């Protein structure tokens, strides 16, 4: 193997590393290793002077490889690759040894931690010898976008992109736009009309020539990779006929929304059996038609609202559906304004009023004399039919936790605040666009805090309630965020593809197709003519699944080759 000139730079990270690792001893231990040209330490390697030290070191010592013993590569690999590039070295000829997260932060024995830091650094030195210079690739970015779902999130995203003069294919499964919001009357906490919010959006979508609206339509297939997807959409016509068309898109926004929890699953609330137990959506319908009445046409005098139906409960969904508390308060307002003499009981577990303006809304609702009763989430209220002598239709027993009393309240109507759940077809959507779901079925984001609308598949974005329960402002913000991400990529025109990806070595592939179905990113295609598999670099995330699976050793994980990994393991062990 050809001789290398390796520069080793050991970081103290202030006292973060130096407190538990003898940084100078690490330097000394590698000084005599074959091919090590220099080894030096510095207080903050990631600082400007630290990076300068690396760049200068490369030039002064004609370094051909660089090892930086510092923090996790997740933290600063990009920083140090940049420093190498500035020093005139291919950025992939750099390797990090993690002596902070994997060493100083997790050990308290200074001697042992120092020994481990030496071993990790020696492993990095052995590995970096086998590094190969890699170049990033570029691919075209198709400026069209596919938006799946015509609710408030999908409409907003489509408009944002079309207003920037790009073509959008807006696919909606049903025959009308608006999604779940179209089923709502007023919205909390400002009591704006949902109809008003939607009408403006829908009109603009219908009038915008950049938006190709596909109602009664579903995505049937998606192939390709970021910037270069080909989407097949099926439109169902009247009388069962349907047509399919294929469109080219660069990105996909999934805005498929949620479905309401089926209240009938909480059997003892009697939804579907007791005529005046209704769900929040059934009550919204009453509000929209302007007729709040019991099944037999009476104005209800006693209304009870029960929270967390299907939410915050191990039996159904453990999560909070986030919008129901404020919606329940909204019902108090609307009931009181329709019938000021009406008694409203709000039976809740915890009152979640975290949104902007929501706490004020809670206060004003208390002022309209709503009776608030708190129950333990594991001890649900009991609804039973009232006796003919009672002045009401039903009686509700609540173990009120604040007073500690068992309270019985009358009710002519019970409103069940049903939570949100992942749509029953979300698994199919996830499969089609190749994204993951969490245990509740919600689509998973690339990073829950730092990358909330992107997914682990480049070019696929998730917005609104398909990712988790959220309110209208959050859904709209996400739609606009995804549109902004896409517009940024369109403006750039090309996509840059990291040089680290898996590669099928054609002369060794036997066409066994073992890897084809395995790729979680659908990055492997099979050429039926040559009978060889091929990895699409732009779609590959370098996870290594195919590399490990290939029984012929024909797939090479660039930057994670067998030689590199074996050398690294030897470095730790020897």
């Amino acid at each position, binding site marked *: 193997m050809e001789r290398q000139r390796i520069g080793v730079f050991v970081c103290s990270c202030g006292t973060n590393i130096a407190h538990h690792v003898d940084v100078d001893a690490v330097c000394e231990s590698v000084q005599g290793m074959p091919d090590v040209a220099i080894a030096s330490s510095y207080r903050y390697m990631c600082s400007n002077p630290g990076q300068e030290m690396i760049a200068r070191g490369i030039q002064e010592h004609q370094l051909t490889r660089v090892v930086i013993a510092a923090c996790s590569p997740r933290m600063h690999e990009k920083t140090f690759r940049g420093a190498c590039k500035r020093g005139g070295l291919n950025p992939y000829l750099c390797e990090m040894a993690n002596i902070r997260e994997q060493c100083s932060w997790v050990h308290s024995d200074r001697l042992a931690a120092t020994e481990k830091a030496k071993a990790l650094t020696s492993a990095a030195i052995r590995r970096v010898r086998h590094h190969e210079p890699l170049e990033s690739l570029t691919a075209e970015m198709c400026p069209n976008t596919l938006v799946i779902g015509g609710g408030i999130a999908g409409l907003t995203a489509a408009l944002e992109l079309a207003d920037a003069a790009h073509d959008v294919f807006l696919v909606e499964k049903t025959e009308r736009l608006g999604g779940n919001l179209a089923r709502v009357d007023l919205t909390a906490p400002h009591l704006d009309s949902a109809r008003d919010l939607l009408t403006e959006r829908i009109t603009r979508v219908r009038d915008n020539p950049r938006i190709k609206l596909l109602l009664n339509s579903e995505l049937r297939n998606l192939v390709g990779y970021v910037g270069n997807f080909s989407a097949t959409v099926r439109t169902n016509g009247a009388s069962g006929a349907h047509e399919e068309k294929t469109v080219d898109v660069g990105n996909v926004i999934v805005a498929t929304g949620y479905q309401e929890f089926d209240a009938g699953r909480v059997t003892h609330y009697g939804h579907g059996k007791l005529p005046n137990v209704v769900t929040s959506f059934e009550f919204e319908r009453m509000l929209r038609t302007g007729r709040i009445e019991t099944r037999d046409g009476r104005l209800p005098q006693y209304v009870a609202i029960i929270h967390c139906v299907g939410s915050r409960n191990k039996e159904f969904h453990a999560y909070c559906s986030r919008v129901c508390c404020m919606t329940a308060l909204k019902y108090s307002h609307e009931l009181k304004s329709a019938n000021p003499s009406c008694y409203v009981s709000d039976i809740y577990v915890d009152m979640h009023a975290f949104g902007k303006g929501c706490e004020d809304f809670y206060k004003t609702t208390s002022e309209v004399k709503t009776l608030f009763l708190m129950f333990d989430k594991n001890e649900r209220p009991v609804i039973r039919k009232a006796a003919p002598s009672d002045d009401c239709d039903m009686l509700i027993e609540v173990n009120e936790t604040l007073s500690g009393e068992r309270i019985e309240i009358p009710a002519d109507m019970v409103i069940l605040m049903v939570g949100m759940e992942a749509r029953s077809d979300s698994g199919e959507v996830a499969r089609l666009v190749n994204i993951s779901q969490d245990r509740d079925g919600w689509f998973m984001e690339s990073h829950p805090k730092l990358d909330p609308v992107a997914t682990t598949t480049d070019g696929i974005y998730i917005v609104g309630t398909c990712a988790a329960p959220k309110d209208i402002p959050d859904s709209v913000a996400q739609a606009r965020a995804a549109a902004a991400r896409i517009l940024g990529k369109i403006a750039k025109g090309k996509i840059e593809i990291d040089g680290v990806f898996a590669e099928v070595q054609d002369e060794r592939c036997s066409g066994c197709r073992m890897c084809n179905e395995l790729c979680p990113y659908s990055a492997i295609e099979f050429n039926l003519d040559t009978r060889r598999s091929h990895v699409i670099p732009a779609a590959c995330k370098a996870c290594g699944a195919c590399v490990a699976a290939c*029984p012929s*050793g024909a797939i090479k994980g660039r930057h994670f080759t067998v030689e590199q990994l074996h050398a690294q393991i030897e470095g730790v062990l020897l």
Partner: protein
Amino acid sequence: MAARKLQIALYWGAACGGCDVAVLDTNEFILDVAAAADIRFWPIAVDGKYHDLEAMADSELDLALFNGAIRNSENEHVAKLLRQKSKLLVAFGSCAHMGGIPGLANLVTKDEILATAYLSNASIEPGNQTIPQARTAVDGMPLEIPSFYRRVYRLCDVVDVDYFVPGCPPAPDQVKAVLLAVVKGELPPLGSVVGASERALCDDCQRTKSEKMVRHFHRPFEILQDPSRCLLEQGILCMGSATRSGCGVRCPNSNQGCRGCYGPLPGVADHGASFLSALASIVDSKDPKEIDQILAGLPDFISFAYRFGLPASTLQRSYR
């Protein structure tokens, strides 16, 4: 001047004899070999004694084909003699190449093997307590037999090997090709595997292959197989994807899964592990319990995946 006749020897170590038969399976070609070469040592076909071999000058032979694994001291002794006496030494067949079927003995200890063979076997005299020893006295005279090693070795574990010809046994066409290459002096770089492809068997297998998702593993007799479709996709274990081609797809063409006798592809460190890793990747379930059930359908997997190469693997031998 007539070309000097090629001086060749063939020998077997721990082997079944199939490799010798494979050489004879070249039919009349063997007569051409006999015409072009002096077969100086080949216990199955020509008379010869150890001392004939010992008496040869170093490198007097041009070519020695050694089949069989190294199981005992006699195997090793002759291997070393042949190495010394021959210009070229070829590990011929799966046993010499990778340890072969005898190599499966490395799954158990020497003591267990001897106990099974001499103490607790249905075909021995009841109550037998005799286990053969390397040195013993018979009627007062010392008797020495080869000593039985603690494990099975490949040929290359005991001597330097110039070429490897894989197969159990090597296909007759490959045998011919190898002999002709020596005759013509057209030899690949030392240390090469010859008579085999650089790609896996799937490359030559005519069965149609599609994406692989397996929910049940079957033994070949348990299902009616589709003769035109990839065996593995039908749940029949086939090592083809992990094994060098070159045999002529003998097993899959006979509706049996490839058993891996041609060994792993170049650059693959462990044949069985590479196949296991691939197999684990195509199990069509994400439910741990169901995965366990599916994998329970693999009978004696280690003997399947390492049928021909346990001594060549990272597993080496039992240390119990």
